[in-house]
């Protein structure tokens, strides 16, 4: 019932740290580079290098390791299923270590499964670290600036950023409204948390209809208010908050580049284990 309290905005951890102070563009680029790097790395040693780097970044960002582990929870089942599929139904051949009926587990497939699992964990950690240290508002700003050069190519940078801003602004408002409607329906005998799945799904209809109607009404009012405040799209628009790449940002990007280069290792080592 207490939707608002259980709903945390993104996963931002508001503490002071050198990583928090970095320009959001630096953190977005670093996360992208790490994601790409993780895919390119083909050795356990390379992944281990990135693990050390990410651990250092987590420490520098003053993020409790517990948070990082909790950040992995949503992907746990995906991870488990992906690894199980690889181990049980991977390529044939190799050295069998376990056999029951048609199922054959080979050493090669175990290693590959572990490797892919490790890789997914690193991907998730790299992106959650960005989310932990960058507020949603900063992320939006950073994304808008990074996409701006691609506007010529038809990327609606300003519109995307405005959509994110309005979403951030209105999610709490709509949650509050949901709670109000739920309470109103419950006062008239509606039941949201009991009964079969089908019954519970049907109980949501009288919740969703007023919520949607309300959201459209709000959208209409907001559009009018924005027009009254001279909004006319992204053309000629300026921003109060200016982003600034400082020396720390360039240093951070260089460190990320070096870490990825070391993890990739000499080109000769580019092969799957």
């Amino acid at each position, binding site marked *: 019932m207490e939707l608002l309290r259980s709903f945390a905005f993104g996963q931002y951890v508001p503490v002071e740290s050198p990583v928090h102070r970095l320009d959001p563009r630096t953190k977005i680029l670093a996360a992208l580079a790490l994601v790409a790097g993780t895919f390119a790395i083909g050795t356990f040693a390379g992944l281990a290098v990135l693990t050390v780097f990410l651990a250092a970044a987590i420490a520098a960002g003053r993020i409790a390791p517990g948070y990082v582990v909790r950040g992995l929870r949503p992907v746990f089942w995906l991870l488990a299923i992906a690894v199980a599929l690889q181990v049980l139904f991977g390529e044939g051949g190799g050295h069998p270590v376990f056999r029951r009926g048609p199922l054959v587990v080979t050493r090669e497939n175990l290693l590959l499964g572990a490797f892919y699992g490790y890789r997914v964990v690193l991907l998730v950690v790299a992106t959650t670290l960005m989310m932990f240290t960058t507020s*949603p*508002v900063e992320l939006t700003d950073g994304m808008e600036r990074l996409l701006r050069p691609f506007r010529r190519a038809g990327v609606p940078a300003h519109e995307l950023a405005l959509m994110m*801003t*309005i979403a*951030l*602004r209105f999610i*709490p*408002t709509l949650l*509050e409204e949901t709670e109000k409607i739920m309470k109103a329906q419950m006062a008239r005998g509606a039941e949201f948390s009991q009964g079969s799945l089908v019954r519970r799904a049907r109980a949501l209809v009288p919740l969703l209809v007023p919520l949607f109607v309300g959201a459209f009404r*709000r959208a209409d*009012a*907001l559009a*009018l*208010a*924005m*027009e*009254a*405040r*001279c*909004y*006319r799209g992204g053309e*000629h*628009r*300026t*921003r*109060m*908050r*200016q982003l600034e790449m400082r020396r720390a940002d360039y240093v951070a990007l260089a460190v990320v580049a070096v870490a990825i280069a070391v993890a990739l290792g000499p080109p000769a080592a580019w092969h799957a284990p």
Partner: protein
Amino acid sequence: MYRAGTPDAVPALRGVDLDVSPGECVALIGGNGSGKSTLAKHLNALLTPTSGAVRVDGIDTRDADRVWDVRQRVGMIFENPDDQLVAAIVEEDVAFGCENLGLPPAEIRARVDAALRLVGLEHLRRRPPHLLSGGQKQRVAIAGVLAMRPRCLVLDEATAMLDPRGQAEVMETALRLCRHEGLALVLITHAMEEAALADRVVVLADGRVALAGPPAEVFSRAEPLARLRIEPPPIARLARLLAASGLPLPPGILTVEQLVEALSPLGAAP
């Protein structure tokens, strides 16, 4: 124009002749459908007249090239405080209008700081709007408009959804800006106590001006008001009843303060 293009087309406003000067506060009252909000939307070119003209600072609102000049000059605050704030942080929302005007960042920064100071919300600048009270949200909206340096502020039932404290906050802020900063203030309201604070009250009925004048004068005209189903502020009725029962009260009392002032010398006598 309602139902435009059909045989029973009805003009929403007819023969409304109204001037608002800098530093003046005009209250627009009238029942539902009297044309109050339609008139308000004409003031900043959200609607343009089908006949007749609306001029803001000498600019005709039908001049398509200058719509944005008109909207910069006439700031509008709407009824629902939740549906007019755009950004997820107070100061960014205040900056929204200035950003639309394409001002340089340093200028926006200075204007946002000044506007937040004027409405007394500097301490909440980094908060997300949903954690603010209704009155505070409306003051954020006022700050957003102020940062655009308007000449006129239009409050379109901006206190209707607020609790009494929020109403007082918003009215105090708006009147202070009108009196001290020389903004023209147009109050569209259902609350007669608010209308009583204006310099001039304009009563609309069926798209026409039914009554106009200083609040004391308008609210003393009991019969036309009753016909328009408008109740004068309760204090005015109380003062009239007291005067009818023999107390020597001057006519035109509209606020608690005025009544207290008129009554206190009487209390001293036996």
